[in-house]
C-alpha cells in the first residue's frame, strides 16, 4: 500500500478525468494487469492531488489502486523525473505514464545511458495539451503522439512539424535591446531563492552532484544574490543545450515564478535552427553539442 494513495479514491475525481480522457479505463485496467501479473513492481502515473484542483504523481504497487489513476488537463508533471531518484532506481521493473513531451525525456535518458529500456514499460498517452488555458508548450507540441512507448492509449494524432515560426515567445524577447534584456533577466532571476526545484524536477538534470554543489572549485556561487542567481540560471540552462526536451516543468515548479522555460526554449530554438536538432525524438540521435560536421565553420569566429 502506498501512503500517497490514502484518501484519494473518490468517484468524483475519476469521472472528471473520464470526461477529458476517454481511454482512462483502458489505462487503469492495463496498469492493473501489469501489477497483477508481476510484469512490473510499480506503475507511476497521476492521481488526484491533496488540493482539490490539483493532480499529483502516484506510485502504485497495489493492483486494486490502479483505478485511482487519472489523466486530465491538470496532469502537467513530467513523471520521468522520478526515474533518476534512488527510490525508483532500485524499484525493479516499472511502468510509467508519459505524455509525448515526457516521452522525449525517456529518449534522452536512454541516449545518455541513464535508464535501461528493459526495466521500463512505457505507457504512452496521446495528449492534446494540458493546462487551462492550454500551456504554450502544448500549443507548439510536435509529439501529441509520443515518440516512444510500449503501449499507446488514445487514438494517435498526426504530429505537427516545427518551423522557425514555432518559437514566437522566444522571438518576442529577442527583439529587445541588450540593455532591456539584461534588466529583464536580472530582475527575474533576482527572485530566485536557490530552492533548486527547477533542477530537481528536471528529468534531464541527472547529475548526482550538481555543478553548483561542487565547491572545489566553486564555479557557481551558491548564494542567492544577483550574481549567484544569474550564474545558476545561466548554467542550469546551458547544461541542457541540445538536451532539453521542453517540458517546462522547471518553470511550473519555480516558486518564484521565473520564466525559466524561455531560457530553455531559446536553446531549443538555436539548436533547431542551427543544427536541425530536436532533443528526444529518438534514443539514437547524437546531441549537437557532442558531434560536428566536418568542415563546418561559424561566421562569428574570425
Amino acid at each position, binding site marked *: 500500500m502506498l501512503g500517497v494513495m490514502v484518501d484519494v479514491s473518490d468517484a468524483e475525481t475519476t469521472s472528471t478525468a473520464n470526461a477529458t480522457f476517454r481511454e482512462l479505463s483502458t489505462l487503469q485496467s492495463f496498469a492493473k494487469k501489469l501489477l497483477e501479473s508481476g510484469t512490473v513492481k510499480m506503475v507511476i502515473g497521476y492521481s488526484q492531488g491533496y488540493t482539490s484542483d490539483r493532480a499529483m504523481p502516484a506510485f502504485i504497487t497495489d493492483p486494486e489502486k490502479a483505478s485511482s489513476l487519472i489523466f486530465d488537463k491538470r496532469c502537467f508533471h513530467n513523471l520521468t523525473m522520478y526515474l533518476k531518484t534512488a527510490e525508483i532506481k532500485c524499484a525493479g521493473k516499472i511502468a510509467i505514464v508519459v505524455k509525448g513531451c515526457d516521452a522525449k525525456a525517456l529518449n534522452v535518458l536512454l541516449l545518455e545511458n541513464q535508464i535501461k529500456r528493459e526495466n521500463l514499460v512505457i505507457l504512452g498517452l496521446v495528449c492534446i495539451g494540458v493546462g487551462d488555458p492550454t500551456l504554450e508548450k502544448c500549443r507548439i507540441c510536435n509529439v501529441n503522439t509520443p515518440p516512444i512507448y510500449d503501449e499507446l492509449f488514445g487514438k494517435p494524432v498526426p504530429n505537427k512539424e516545427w518551423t522557425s515560426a514555432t518559437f514566437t515567445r522566444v522571438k518576442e524577447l529577442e527583439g529587445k535591446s541588450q540593455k532591456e534584456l*539584461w534588466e529583464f533577466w536580472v530582475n527575474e532571476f533576482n527572485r530566485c531563492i536557490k530552492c533548486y526545484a527547477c533542477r530537481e524536477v528536471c528529468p534531464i538534470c541527472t547529475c548526482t552532484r550538481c*555543478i553548483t554543489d561542487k565547491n572545489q572549485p566553486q564555479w557557481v556561487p551558491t548564494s542567492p544574490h544577483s550574481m549567484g542567481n544569474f*550564474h545558476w540560471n545561466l*548554467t542550469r540552462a546551458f547544461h541542457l543545450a541540445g538536451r532539453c526536451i521542453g517540458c517546462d516543468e522547471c518553470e511550473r515548479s519555480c516558486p518564484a515564478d521565473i520564466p525559466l522555460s524561455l531560457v530553455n526554449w531559446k536553446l531549443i530554438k*538555436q539548436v533547431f535552427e542551427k543544427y536541425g536538432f530536436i532533443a528526444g525524438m529518438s534514443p539514437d540521435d547524437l546531441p549537437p553539442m557532442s558531434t560536428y560536421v566536418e568542415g563546418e565553420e561559424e561566421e562569428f569566429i574570425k
Partner: protein
Amino acid sequence: MAEFKPKAIAFICNWCTYTGADLAGTSRMEYPADFRIIKVPCTGRIDAEFIIKGFEQGADGIWISGCHIGDCHYQSGNYFAQRRWSIFHDELEFLGIDTRRLKYTWISASEGRKFADEATEFVERLKELGPYEDFDQIIPKIEESGASVGGDG
C-alpha cells in the same frame, strides 16, 4: 580622468594561438598589455564556466582563440568548441550579456601578425565600450557589508 584600462582575459590554445602569440613576441610586434592569457591545451577544454567566472572576476572582455578549423592539434577539439560557443553565445546574448565583449578567433602558430592585430583590436574595442558596468552591478563587493536585509538584495 585617467584613461580607462580594460581588464580582460584571453583563453588560448597551447598549440596554435599560444605559439602564434610567442611568434608575435619573437618578431617584436607591439600590442596593448591590457589582457592576461590563460593557456589551455585546446579550445575544446574551455568550459562555459570559465567565461562566466571571468565576468564575475570583473573582466571587461573575454577572448577565446585556437587553431583554425581543420588544424586542431587534437583533431576535433575546436569543432566541439565552435558549436559550444555558437550556442552559448546566443544564450548569453538572449540573457542580455553584452556580447561585444566576447571575441573569438582562430589564430595559427604562424600568425604572429594576426595575433598582434587581433589583440590590438580587442583592447581598442573594450576601451571604446568602457567598463562593463551592467555586470559590475551584480557582483557583490567585498568592501560593502553586503548583508542582504531581506528582499531581493
